[in-house]
């Protein structure tokens, strides 16, 4: 009868490679064997010099009302000022922040929904500018040619079984919007 596998008794059946063999094979093997040499051990370490020369930082001016999580006691002293709230997506986001804590699914689902609205608002707005959104250059799809798109997908890659969806997800809304526009134009003509 063969030996029982390891977990059915107390010792490992195959001993690990020896220290010397590992050191010879792998540069630096074991240099951080002692947990004390690992920088995040222990996890919390009071007293590290961080460079902060304040007890509480100066407050960055709030140039325009800044949305914040209702789990915060106050607006933190420093914050990002990229892309302030605007439009319909801004209204949804403002509501998600004001109404729901981070613990509520509604908070995050509203924010994800607002992201889709934001993309649409921005695409539509771009059509009225000198630089409308360009689905070809902005998706970087040209790299399919320069980056060996066909060859790269040979072999056992599991993403090939769903990457066919990508063009539909990226271009689908544009196609639908185009069909919608055609339908609207036809309807308007027909009603005349």
């Amino acid at each position, binding site marked *: 009868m063969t030996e029982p596998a390891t977990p059915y008794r107390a010792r490992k059946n195959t001993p690990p490679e020896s220290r010397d063999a590992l050191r010879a094979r792998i540069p630096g093997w074991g240099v951080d064997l002692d947990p004390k040499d690992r*920088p995040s051990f222990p996890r919390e370490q009071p007293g590290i010099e961080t460079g902060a*020369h304040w007890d509480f930082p100066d407050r960055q001016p709030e140039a325009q009302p800044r949305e914040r*999580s209702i789990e915060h006691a106050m607006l933190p002293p420093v914050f*990002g000022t990229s892309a302030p709230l605007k439009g319909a997506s801004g209204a949804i986001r403002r509501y998600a922040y004001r109404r729901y804590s981070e613990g509520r*699914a509604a908070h995050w689902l509203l924010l994800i929904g607002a992201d889709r609205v934001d993309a649409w608002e921005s695409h539509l707005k771009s059509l009225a500018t000198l630089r409308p959104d360009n689905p070809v250059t902005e998706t970087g799809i040209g790299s399919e040619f320069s980056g060996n798109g066909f060859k790269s997908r040979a072999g056992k890659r599991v993403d090939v079984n769903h990457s066919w969806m990508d063009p539909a997800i990226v271009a689908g809304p544009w196609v639908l919007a185009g069909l919608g526009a055609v339908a609207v134009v036809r309807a308007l003509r027909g009603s005349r």
Partner: protein
Amino acid sequence: MRAMVYRGPYKIRVEEKDIPKIEHPNDAIIRVTTGAICGSDLHLYHGMMPDTRVGTTFGHEFAGVVHQVGSSVQNLIPGDRVMVPFNVYCGSCWFCARGLYSNCHNVNPNATAVGGIYGYSHTCGGYDGGQAEFVRVPFADVGPSRIPDWMDEEDAVLLTDALPTGYFGAQLGDIVEGDTVVVFGAGPVGLFAAKSAWLMGAGRVIVVDHLDYRLEKARSFAHAETFNFAEYDDIVVHLKKQTDYLGADVVIDAVGAEADGNFLQHVTATKFKLQGGSPVALNWAIDSVRKGGTVSVVGAYGPIFSAVKFGDALNKGLTLRMNQCPVKRQWPRLFEHIRNGYLKPNELVTHRIPLEHIAEGYHMFSAKLDNIIKPLIISATA
């Protein structure tokens, strides 16, 4: 200045933007010379991270030159070459005072559950990132460090996230001598985690992915055994067989939210955004670690719930450890390892892409074209 700008899922372009201004006395403005695209940027690019706004600039891995400093900055002057950790953090709040820089409470109004990250959506504070010619860096006396003269700038960029995150992932595994360590994901973070596991005394390191060219790198760069999960009907059973049915002592999830390998999980999470992430790798980790073992998670997940097999984690008595990496805490030790030649970060750089062509860079990285592992972004002014 030129800057990458998000236009909606799968769409980005390079635009003319104003050079960022000093908004706080401890701010610095950095002129970016080398940046990078991180695997976690793909979660933003695919539209999975809540409150990712059109018009924002991504990028949390960058190095450059100090262009301007605020009135209270003491440690940096214009002209200094600096590397900047991906964490925006104050250095003085309850969390920073204990070394938890990635969990800073003073920099992110939008959420209390996550600290600040450059160019990583409003959920992470609404900061513009470094895939641009210039970037605002808050708390200039706390985050950035001068790049040592001996250090290669590409190594410096990899030290802003990928390397420390991988090394931190191995640390979270609490590896003891002789442990069998399995790493899911052979991207830069997974490869660095595998390499770091040896430094901590692992007896066996196994890397699992489905991209053969990355597994090849895991063998040559990280001295690991490798398995392509696409070749096995059930990778968990295969890993059990490989460990004499015990399971691994430590498993590291270096994949995160876009894990593939389960059609339903992947599609519900990444195509239809119904989960905060597809927890395929995490569930494999829970199943393939031994009872009483440790699962370390450094792959990024979003704030929406994910379908994780929690009952198995309970019944197996697992330790689950995870965090965003407090980058600067890792630097002194990692600098030593690089100087000693134990770690050679820029060996993972496969592509150097001009900022103007960043849309192609994102597509190639997202679709895994041209054997891409780590793409750097080279600024026009560099």
